[in-house]
């Protein structure tokens, strides 16, 4: 069991708890930088992980830290994507400026959404963001001039300061840079007064107000910040996906974002990353499994004879190749996590770490949830 002996207040403020943690993260960074050489065929998927990581981070700030649950983040992603493509391709603006403008525009829309949201609590806010997302999707459908409507819009590769980024590796590094930047910024805000104010709003609005927190300003700021980050991710997403169409930015995508936040663990930055990894890599996993699982079942049941094995393999193959399976698996994962792992992957990781540090004195009851009774949230 390792103790961290703190002698200055600076240590509490620092990004890393001690040199050990800092070295561990540096090693992780080194691995990520070398990844393109080790697994080049999965680079596109990893880029998506990084982009979704940025989205998960933004939603974590809004839902996990400020307590404002949004079911409409796919709309922000879409706004960022379409705006960036319009600014850089249709208007011919330089890449950095286009991304900055797209981020700014998405942040402005975030403020627009956030302002009426001030008067709503809890579930009403979630429903409002859902309505907003559905309206925006229709706007994407209809506004032909900017979005290309139902025909869609092709996206070229990014060209930054005249340097074209054609390779997957270059794009991967670009996304990595944005994600690390986003993490740093978020960490900074969370250890500063604004981040504390957000957490206060999540836990007790009345107390936060009595301590001088202007609810309207901080909630709007949370929305703007979250929307801005998602907008930036949208710009990158446009390049990653190569072709924009309105039916990418559906409610189902918003639900996937929320899934990232829940699976990763509400209220922690690590959780955002774990969640993004899970949700972004899940389709890859499912398609790999679709190819291999029938054979495994076949081999397993081949013990009972060759024909039995083949029959089982064929049956399982028919089952997993059905088109409606994927959303069902997402739903199942969501349900299982909420039932059994409400604190997400990060919560499970904390418990595992505690087990090893307390070994052999760990008691499962440490984390046992007290039986809690529902109290009305209507009267807030």
């Amino acid at each position, binding site marked *: 069991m390792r103790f961290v002996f703190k002698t200055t207040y600076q240590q509490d403020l620092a990004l890393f708890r001690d040199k050990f943690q800092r070295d561990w993260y540096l090693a992780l960074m080194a691995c990520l930088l070398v990844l393109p050489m080790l697994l080049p065929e999965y680079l596109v998927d990893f880029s998506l992980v990084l982009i979704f990581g940025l989205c998960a981070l933004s939603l974590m700030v809004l839902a996990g830290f400020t307590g404002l649950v949004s079911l409409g983040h796919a709309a922000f992603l879409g706004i960022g994507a379409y705006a960036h493509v319009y600014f850089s391709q249709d208007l011919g603006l330089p890449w950095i400026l286009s991304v900055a403008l797209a981020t700014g525009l998405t942040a402005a829309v975030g403020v627009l959404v956030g302002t*009426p949201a001030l008067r709503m609590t809890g579930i009403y806010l979630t429903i409002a963001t859902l*309505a907003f997302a559905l309206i925006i999707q229709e706007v994407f459908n209809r506004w032909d001039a900017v979005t290309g409507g139902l025909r869609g819009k092709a996206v070229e590769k990014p060209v930054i300061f005249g340097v074209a980024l054609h390779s997957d590796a270059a794009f991967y590094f670009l996304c990595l840079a944005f994600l690390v930047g986003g993490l740093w910024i978020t960490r900074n805000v969370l250890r500063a007064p604004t981040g504390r104010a957000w957490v206060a709003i999540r836990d007790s609005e009345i107390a936060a107000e009595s301590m001088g927190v202007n609810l309207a300003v901080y909630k709007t700021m949370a929305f703007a910040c979250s929307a801005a980050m998602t907008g930036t991710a949208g710009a990158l997403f446009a390049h990653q996906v190569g072709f924009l169409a309105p039916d990418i930015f559906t409610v189902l995508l918003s639900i996937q974002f*929320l899934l990232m936040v829940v699976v990763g663990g509400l209220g922690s930055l690590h959780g955002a990353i774990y969640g993004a990894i899970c949700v972004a890599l899940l389709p890859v996993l499912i398609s790999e499994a679709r190819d291999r699982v029938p054979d495994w079942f076949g081999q397993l049941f081949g013990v009972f004879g060759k024909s039995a094995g083949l029959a089982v393999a064929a049956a399982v193959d028919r089952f997993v190749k059905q088109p409606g399976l994927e959303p069902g698996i997402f739903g199942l994962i969501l349900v299982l996590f909420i039932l059994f792992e409400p604190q997400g992957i990060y919560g499970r990781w904390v418990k595992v770490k505690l087990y090893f540090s307390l070994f052999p004195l760990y008691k499962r009851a440490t984390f046992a949830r007290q039986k809690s009774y529902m109290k009305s949230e209507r009267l807030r």
Partner: protein
Amino acid sequence: MDGRRRPVLDIIVQLTLNALAVGCIYGLVALGFVLIYKATELVNFAQGDLMMLGAFTCYMFVVWYGIGYWPAFALAVAIIGLFGAALDWLILRRVIGQPQFALVMLTIGLGAIFRSLASMTWGSEIYTLPTPFSAHQTMVGGVSVSHEYLSIILGTVILCAVLYAFFTHTRLGVAMQAASQNQLAAYYMGIPVKRVFSLIWAISAGVAAIAGVLLAPVSLIDINLGFIGLKAFAAAVLGGFGSIPGALAGGVTIGMIELFSGAYLPQGFKDVAAYVVLLIVLVVRPQGMFGTVGRKRV
């Protein structure tokens, strides 16, 4: 009754009935939301998908097993009602006490699972349900009135009346309110909270199934039927998320608003009219038409 057909009036009446009927469906789904919300303060995002399951189950009994329409209707409602109770008993009971957000995510996940199961059981094509009302009309004052719309409107009114009577004249309604505001105190008062909740879920699921079966002849059955649930949100919020008549009134209002947006506004507004209304209501008057505002005591 001069026997002449009046085509313009005909169209207007048809459209109005259509809007009323669709509004009634919104109202029924909103009703399901309201029932569960009043009891457990949970918004059941899977309500629309329960409606879809109801429609499919009835279809299965009528088309695959050849049972008559009315018995199939009753069977479908009963099965989905039991399914709702089982859902509460097996899954939702374990998560009571968690923050509302987690419960919302849970129902969203359940909805996705229902859609997936439906697509695996019944396939992902579009189906039609043969009913005694399909393609039947009556002439009233020179205007043709379609039986399908009539069945929806009448069915909704009857169901709402029955439910209203049930909740105002039994102790269950009061027990429901108590359990929703302070569970622990309700337990102390001897209210079998868990059983009350399961019953509420059974009723709400049954109402969803009824809505699904009534809707089936008008809108075709497919796994995405549940997305009507999103518009029903607008109905529930408009009605104040607190009462049976409110939900129905909200639903009919949304139906009418959609009708007029389709008639007078440019294309595409009809689809989003419900959501725009939802946003406006949430901003201007969050308690809707009939709801009340509560405030926490500190």
